[in-house]
């Protein structure tokens, strides 16, 4: 069995700050991490490999520094890593990104048939959740998003049964390989890197592929040219409301403050107060 896992190196968005004057992202000192949602997919792929044997290849599209993220995946137990990197990919939106990754996966397939592709549910920087479905469509694979559990995998029949999160419930789906899966967050916990795998990762030469190695002939489908969407403006959210009316009483007694506030609510927002009364009743 051969599983390809798509990952992305992202800045730890919790630590990103916006420059107060220039409204630009201050990346300095912000650590780069493997997109956390990707790790749920990688762990699930590794579990399938533990059970059924085979091989896990991780792949990423990004700048040369993304090599670090791929080595991290080797340390977790992936067998091989490919970084698809080329200036020609710059400015790619999700449509162009899914084309580049799908092309690379087709190249991987020339060496060893791919049974399954895993991708993160979404990334924490772009948050689009579009690249996984895009790759599935381009590779003509069955798409299973928001998977909360893999029930059974029968390699002899090429069949898989999964549970997929839907609004208000869970769908139990059965489909045929090859398929593309995005795992729901919190469905598993990434294993610790073993000492052996950490040593292997340190020595492991990540494969660098450019657009030619990735088998891309039509450059109109990659990078900025292949991207139907275009960022026309980036800006910091503007305070578009007036500042709060500060409730102040001279006594500063919590009870006085509460009374003042509730009086204001009842006089200035009678409709709101009607529904509060109704709801509380």
């Amino acid at each position: 069995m051969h599983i390809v896992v798509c990952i992305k190196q992202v800045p730890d968005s919790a630590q990103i700050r916006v420059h107060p004057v220039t409204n630009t992202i201050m990346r300095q000192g912000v650590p780069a991490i493997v997109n956390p949602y990707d790790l749920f997919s990688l762990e699930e792929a590794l579990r399938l490999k533990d059970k059924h044997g085979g091989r896990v290849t991780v792949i990423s599209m990004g700048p040369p520094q993304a090599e670090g993220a791929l080595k991290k995946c080797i340390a977790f137990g992936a067998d091989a890593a490919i970084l698809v990197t080329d200036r020609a990919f710059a400015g790619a939106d999700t449509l162009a990104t899914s084309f580049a990754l799908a092309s690379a996966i087709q190249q991987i397939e020339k060496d060893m048939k791919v049974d399954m592709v895993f991708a993160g549910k979404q990334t924490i920087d772009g948050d689009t959740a579009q690249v996984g479905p895009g790759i599935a469509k381009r590779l003509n694979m069955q798409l299973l998003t928001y998977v909360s559990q893999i029930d059974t995998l029968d390699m002899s029949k090429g069949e898989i049964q999964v549970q997929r999160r839907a609004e208000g419930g869970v769908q139990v789906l059965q489909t045929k390989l090859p398929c593309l899966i995005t795992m729901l967050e919190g469905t598993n916990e990434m294993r610790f890197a073993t000492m052996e795998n950490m040593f292997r990762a340190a020595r492991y030469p990540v494969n660098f592929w450019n657009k030619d190695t990735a088998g891309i002939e039509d450059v109109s489908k990659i990078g900025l040219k292949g991207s139907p969407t275009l960022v026309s403006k980036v800006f910091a959210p503007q305070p578009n409301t007036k500042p709060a009316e500060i409730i102040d009483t001279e006594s500063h007694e919590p009870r006085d403050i509460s009374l003042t506030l509730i009086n204001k609510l009842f006089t200035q927002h009678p409709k709101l107060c009607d529904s509060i009364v109704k709801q509380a009743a």
Partner: protein
Amino acid sequence: MSETNAAPAKKPAGRGNFELDERLKAYKGVWVFIEHERGEVHPVSWELLGEGRKLADKLGVELSGVVMGAPGLPTRRFCEESFFHGADNCYLIEDTVLSNYRNESFTKGLTDLVNAYQPEILLLGATTQGRDLAGSVATTLQTGLTADCTELNIDPDNRGLAATRPTFGGSLLCTIITKNYRPQMATIRPRVMSMPDRNATRTGRIIEHPLGLIETSIITKVLAYIPDENQDKPQLPFADIIIAGGRGMKKPENFQLIWDLAQVLGAEVGATRPVVQAGWVDAERQVGQSGKTVRPKLYIAAGISGAIQHRVGMEGSDVIIAINNDPNAAIFEFATYGIVGNAMTILPALTETFKQQLAVARVAS
């Protein structure tokens, strides 16, 4: 105006000014995908019809809903409801293979409809179903898709859709346009757009279309649907009153003060990401960029500083009351009322005062 790849150099970098391909000029009208599961339409579909109406009016075109489902499901009622919420037309595909949502069959149906009737804008809810479907449809149609938008506008220069969405965890907003491709697709989170008024006198035209797919040719089978056990799990996005707490609540025991006030008001409890990560409350209750978007009538924020990641999830609330002991907290810049003080003493006082006032109001009514 010039060709796509020869935009005038004097235009600011990245700003698009494109002459639309002749073939794509035929694409007209705004569409909203009407999502339903278990016989219920997801409210985000009505919210999108409200927003779609504004876009269609600006463009001077028609607004249409798209309903797909199996015979036996209330699909015609869904079409009628679409008219009540602002649609002029409804495209309807009815087929037994559409009894459950599946990527393959729904992608085929929606893609075929777009190719046959050529809308210029197609909107879907950013739900598990909408995001799954939008990604596949946009790739099949080779068009642009903008995820999780918070604002939609028409660019007066070129009649294109300008879709604004938060990026980098909500710390920045970016406006995205789809250059020389149609339809322009976008997903929008539930509760970001306001619910339009329902007008039950409105009518419209139903346009039926075949699916052309048989069950045996569909690879993925739905074996079962297990509804969530806990039916009374928090419905934060649709709550009228939310009492939310942040790190300023200091310790998990203090969160009880939030629950107490919520109980008196019949409200839902919300929280910020740090509080959820610390395990004080369920992840279901997280409000903000990586949690739920809410738009209650009343939002009481206790010990919440108002970081942008939280703000994007709750600024649509009608009235915001902020309690924070830091007079410089960002939340005072956009709350309706601010109380500079200790949430641990003010919350119990509020609970008590509300209790008394509500008792008085009940006697009076």
